[in-house]
């Protein structure tokens, strides 16, 4: 069979880095092909070349045996390539049909389009009503909007970039059913993911990239996840480990915490009750947008609560602000690195000052001690192996993983008694992620309590003592993480938002 798409010798260099170096691969019609690699391995550049967003320096592509070099995405779409991006480009205030119409050339009239959307959504088991406003949809439903937008163009190749990072296990199942059906109809799928177990269940073939080069191919069903991970990283992975400790006395108590969301499309917190003990790691899972940011804000002090809802070491901290909470030993690291955890244009020294001022004694009588802040920044850089020329560099000049190490390290080195982190390893490569997880476990071993909010269930299962899930702003009863089944976790996360796998 002639391949649907074949790439040969694709090379693309940017100043200072070769993003793709002589990359070749081919995809047959109906094949589900995984593209694996760490952050910065060149996966994004490669799919952008296929989608016509980037022009390669060398190499050629063929689609159905004829030359294929799309100068822009419109040409790629016309040739039958569809792409679902990791970050959705949807307007919250518009309806599903309006959003889809915006992304189409020659969109049909609204009534006809709604009809088409219903038909595609029925055929492929993607339940979605065209009239709903996108702002009210869950992340899984938003993704369906993007997928349907692609499917309406009847693509021959569908590219999916990290599609499951925002889904519950049940929603992942629905998505996989859809993808299998598409594949059975002859649509090829190029699937990018970090989640190796998913790739093992879904994909027919895998190409592994490292530093822009193809370092291997494999049949995922016949390869262990560990082997694939080690091919990606190029070295043997250390599994985070800790000595088991018995949980100590309670340190943080949340009682019936309810709070409206500060933002219009946010999620209110509803009656959250929780007792956290010294020495434990509590994992909090849940689909993005179910109150994670709000819970972190309520704990960091960015969002104050009425008295009597949050007590830390016996004192009521609900009405206290972030500085007062830090003084007491309750520290946090938010999800958004640039702009929330760190100020992008400021130096690492200044960013060390940002949260370290109180606990590291970087301030005296309101005056800032810059040399001390600088050595604190240097200590973070050294201890957490942050790759940067020095603390005088702007935060935005660091790669995502390095900045994440800096942000987590900044809090860990302040000896927290409770540390709350949201998505600590999001977009971080495997070895850096392992280092961050190890640091969190070491904290717990040292007697601190850690709350890890994450979308990555594998990560949570690996490091948590107890597991709870956020769903619609409610926190489930925390259960011991050991022995939890995927079904149980899925139920805690709220199932698939009341939708079933379509019977196709």
């Amino acid at each position, binding site marked *: 069979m002639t391949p649907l798409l074949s790439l040969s010798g694709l090379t693309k260099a940017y100043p200072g880095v070769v993003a793709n170096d002589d990359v070749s691969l081919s995809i047959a019609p109906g094949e589900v092909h995984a593209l694996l690699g760490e952050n910065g391995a060149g996966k994004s550049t490669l799919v*952008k070349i296929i989608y016509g967003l980037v022009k390669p320096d060398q190499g050629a592509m063929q689609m159905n045996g004829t030359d294929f070099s799309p100068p822009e995405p419109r040409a790629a779409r016309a040739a039958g390539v569809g792409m679902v991006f990791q970050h959705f480009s949807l307007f919250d205030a518009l309806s599903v049909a309006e959003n889809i119409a915006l992304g189409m050339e020659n969109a049909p009239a609204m009534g006809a389009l709604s009809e088409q959307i219903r038909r595609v959504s029925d055929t492929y088991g993607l339940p979605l009503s065209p009239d709903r406003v996108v702002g009210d949809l869950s992340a899984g439903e938003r993704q369906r909007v993007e997928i349907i937008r692609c499917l309406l163009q009847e693509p021959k190749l569908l590219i999916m970039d990290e599609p499951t990072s925002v889904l519950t296990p049940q929603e992942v199942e629905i998505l996989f059913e859809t993808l299998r059906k598409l594949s059975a109809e002859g649509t090829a799928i190029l699937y990018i993911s970090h989640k190796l177990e998913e790739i093992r269940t879904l994909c027919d073939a895998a190409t592994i990239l490292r530093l822009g080069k193809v370092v291997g191919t494999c049949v995922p069903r016949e390869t262990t996840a560990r082997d694939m991970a080690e091919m990606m990283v190029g070295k043997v992975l250390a599994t985070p480990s800790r000595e088991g400790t018995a949980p100590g006395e309670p340190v943080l108590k949340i009682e019936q915490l309810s709070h409206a969301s500060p933002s219009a499309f946010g999620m209110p917190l509803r009656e959250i009750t929780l007792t956290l003990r010294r020495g434990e790691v509590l994992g909090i899972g849940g689909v993005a947008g179910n109150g994670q940011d709000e819970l972190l804000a309520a704990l960091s002090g960015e969002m104050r609560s009425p008295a009597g809802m949050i007590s830390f070491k016996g004192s009521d901290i609900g009405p206290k602000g*972030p500085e007062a909470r830090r003084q007491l030993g309750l520290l*946090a690291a938010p999800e*958004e690195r640039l702009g929330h*955890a760190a100020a992008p*244009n*400021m130096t690492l020294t200044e960013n060390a000052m*940002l*949260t370290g001022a109180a606990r590291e004694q970087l301030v005296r009588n309101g005056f800032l001690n810059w040399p001390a802040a600088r050595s604190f920044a240097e200590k973070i850089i050294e201890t957490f192996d942050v790759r940067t020329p020095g603390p005088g560099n702007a935060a935005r000049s660091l790669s995502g993983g390095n900045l994440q190490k800096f942000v987590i390290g900044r809090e860990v080195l302040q000896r927290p008694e409770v540390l709350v982190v949201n998505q600590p390893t999001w977009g971080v490569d495997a070895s850096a992620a392992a280092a961050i997880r190890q640091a969190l476990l070491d904290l717990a071993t040292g007697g601190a309590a850690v709350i890890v909010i994450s979308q990555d269930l594998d990560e949570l299962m690996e490091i948590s003592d107890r597991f709870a899930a956020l769903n619609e702003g409610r926190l489930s009863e925390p259960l011991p993480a050991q022995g939890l089944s995927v079904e149980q976790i899925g139920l805690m996360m709220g199932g698939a938002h009341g939708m079933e796998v379509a019977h196709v």
Partner: protein
Amino acid sequence: MIRLEKRPQPSRAFSWAAPLLAVLATFFFGGLLFAALGKDPVQSILTIFWQPLFGEFSFFYRPQLLIKGAPLVLIAIGLSLGFRAGIWNIGAEGQYIMGALFGAGFGLAFYPADSALIFPGMVLAGAFGGWIWAMIPAILKVRFGTNEILVSLMLVYVAEQFLASMSLGLMKNPEGFGFPGSRNLQQYPSAHNAELIAGSGMHWGVVAAMIAVIFAYVLLTRHRLGFAVRVTGEAPRAAKFSGVNPGRLVLFCLGTSGMLAGLAGLFEVSGPAGQVTIDFNTGYGFTAIIVAFLGRLHPIGIVLAGLLMALTYIGGDIAQSQLGLPAAAIQVFQGMLLFFLLAFDLFTNYRLRTGRTEAA
């Protein structure tokens, strides 16, 4: 195709070079403008920039540099604090007027008493007048989320009406033969902001401006409040995460800038202007916005920018009287300066690349 590419690090060199390039570009295009008006461009530029400093009558113009520069620097320093934090006080002109009215009102209330306490009292009253006028947009913003740009700007026009009312009513000189305007404070020694060194142009306003510059410099580089200002401007969410209370920062920034603008008004009305008149305000509060940006919102930069701006004011006056350049041309010339500064400023964070566009 030419495109902009974001620099990984803001360029330090460019952040210093941008004002210089902006001045040079203004010379060039300003020269073209003057040529188009039928004047000799070189002579026009020289009249504006050379005459006041080194010309025949420079002994008269040089003190003017301080007299015109001081209120600009004083106001711009205050504004720069807010601008750095993303808090936009556009109504310094109104706070300047209210500072003058409160301060002059305090002094006039004691006329003709003689006491060393009157002038310090006027300074406090002037600062209070500017502060209270800036507190209106500040409190409305914190309490109800109104836009401080609109409210502070609108209050300028309210302040102008107050000024007119005061010059024609309450503060009108009872011995002024019915002319609008207050008593002349220059003739009331206890309330006069006299020159400290005769013929130098140095008055208490200049001293206040210098103190404000030092205060702002220390605040921004060494103090946690200044750090809060900078972080809030760079990344508001990060600031909130670090523990900055955004509402308090709004009160502080608007309050401080209002206070300094009020002081500038007081020193002007009790010194160089002398009396409260309908046309007392001459746009210092608006020009100070240009000065703040031209000085890169940096205290030292603002001093240089304030002096440069004062120079264009003085030189512009000379050019109007000697060369017959229209006042509007001088204003366009000053506007060009801000325009080019903002344009060159872009290159601090971006660089120009030629080549094919590409989304990478």
